[in-house]
């Protein structure tokens, strides 16, 4: 979609996303193991057939390949953002590309958030709220995140005007 916003996320975002996706997958795998164990221990039970289990397992392997190895990469490549005096411009999406424009004077508050995974990679999310919507710039380097947050809030304060 024509020109894209100029700033990219931190390269480390890909690794952080991979970790969080892996944890999610790990939980699914645990559940699957439980099912396998159950069906192997009591072969006469009709709860799930072996074929269904095999199908689920194959499916899980494919999903894992996709969301652990490809999706974070694509997501990172797609994501870009730009903040200036008048507006915030975001581009995101894996399959569906979304371009978002937020006039700076509409910003109600902005904050940074950091979960345990992001923290271990020194990353943080920036969350921008307007009166109608909430937007997130994910996985920025800690310092950049702080800078962006302060920048936005300074601009928002300058552009005085209420709802």
């Amino acid at each position, binding site marked *: *979609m024509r020109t894209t916003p100029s700033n990219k996320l931190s390269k480390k975002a890909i690794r952080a996303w991979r970790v969080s996706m892996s944890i999610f997958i790990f939980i699914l795998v645990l559940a699957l193991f439980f099912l396998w164990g159950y069906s192997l221990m009591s072969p006469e039970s009709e709860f799930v057939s072996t074929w269904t289990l095999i199908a689920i397992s194959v499916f899980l392997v494919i999903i894992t390949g996709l969301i652990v190895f490809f999706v974070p990469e694509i997501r990172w490549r797609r994501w870009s953002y730009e903040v*200036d005096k*008048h507006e915030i411009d975001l581009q995101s999406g894996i399959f569906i*590309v979304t*371009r978002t*424009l937020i006039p700076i004077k509409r910003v109600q508050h902005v904050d940074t958030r950091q979960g345990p995974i992001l923290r271990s990679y020194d990353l943080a999310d920036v969350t921008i709220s307007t009166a109608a919507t909430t937007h997130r710039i994910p996985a920025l380097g800690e310092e950049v995140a702080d800078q962006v947050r302060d920048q936005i809030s300074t601009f928002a304060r300058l552009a005085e*005007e209420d709802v």
Partner: protein
Amino acid sequence: MFELQRQHPAAALANAFDIIRANFITIIILIFVGSGGSEANFTLSWIIGTFLFLLIWGVISWYRFEFSVEEGELRIERGVLVRKKIYLTSDRIQVIDITAGVIQRLFGLVAVEVKTAGSSSKQAKISALTREKAEKLKQLLRKEVNGATKQGEQDESVQQSRIYALGTKDLLVAASTSGRFGVALSVVGVLFSQVEQLISEEQMIRFAEAVMPRTTDASIIAMWIVAIIVVSWIFSFVSTIVKYYDFVVEVREDELLINRGLFERTQLTIPFNRIQAVQIKEELLRQPLGYASLVIESAGYGESEGNSTTLFPLLRKQQIYRFIEEVIPDYNTQITENSKVPAIALRRYLLRMVWVSLPVILLVWGTVPYGVYSWFLLIPALLLGYQQYKDAEIARGEDTLKLSYRLLSKTTAIVKKYRMQACQIQQNPFQKRLNVGHFSIHVASGNQGRNFTVRDIEIDKAMDYRMWLSNGHPVDQGSSVDENEVSSL
């Protein structure tokens, strides 16, 4: 002027009824399910017990509810178990509603609801008050808003405010073509499915045979469908009349006053500068008759499902823009440019309707006798898709954006450039091939805000509109130095 005081004791009753009304459907279902057996006495005592409990609760919460106005601030202390203090400064108050429900009318009282940015309106509701006190309260709280208080008041009395009322004929038309029809349909459908528990199927068939000598399965199904439609139509007819009876809009200097309702008189005050967007809704049943309704979005938070208010329930299509011109002139701007959806996107509109209707068709086909006929649903679905394609449009005027789109009924949203909260363009790979994308605008309304979307507009045009929207700051052009500073992030 307003010392710390309690509400009128009738608030206890009003509170109890509020709870009942909020959980009405749950209660009905409980009664339906509960009264299955022969123990009618048990059900009755259960109902009375619940009611008594609610009443006692109401009395306690009335006792614990105190309010006052000090230093231009509405202060409310409330809460039975957890004590809450709510302070609302008058310059933050967005809307003050005065309503009179059945209970309030019995005692000649009113309820006052104060909506602000940030606090939930339900919490700042004073549910029983004499009208004089309510008016005084309103005056007191509005006073601080307009700096020139006394002058404003005098002007108001001198300047005659314009009034628009809904005529009886229009009310009847509005009721018979109400958009609530669909909602009523689903409720009645559920109720009808309960009827089977009360009357056995055999009785029904015997009744049907008595009425119509040659009955087949098909005609019984047809009869059911007709019955459900008729009953839900009556429902929607009555509920619309109850809601919009004696509908009056009063245009004041800086606010709109809407009065409506048969049993429950509702009075809404909407300051002009709180209006976020205007919608012209051409409902499916009204459009062929040349009618539409006007809805405005206002920025009161704390209400989960957005804050739409019907500005006028029924207008002839030719009258709409004149009405807007007279009542909210800001929203009647000359359209200078408009763009339709490109012809190439038509197939996306048609296909979308096929995807939407296919599950329904397959489900009906698989489960209901004579379900094969459900394939005929495709025809209206495709027609609707075509109409959606025809109706989708973005237009702009000086500082106004007008988005038209249709799901079932056609909506035309008029949004001011400076009211936009965010603008979004979406494109999936299929759309990329056709160079189209969805264009949506978010405005503030309630907690969630509201968004208006035009689908499959040409991507270049969408980007143009976006550019145009972001240029909403003609004042400081020469500040390019600051921008360089920013881009060094």
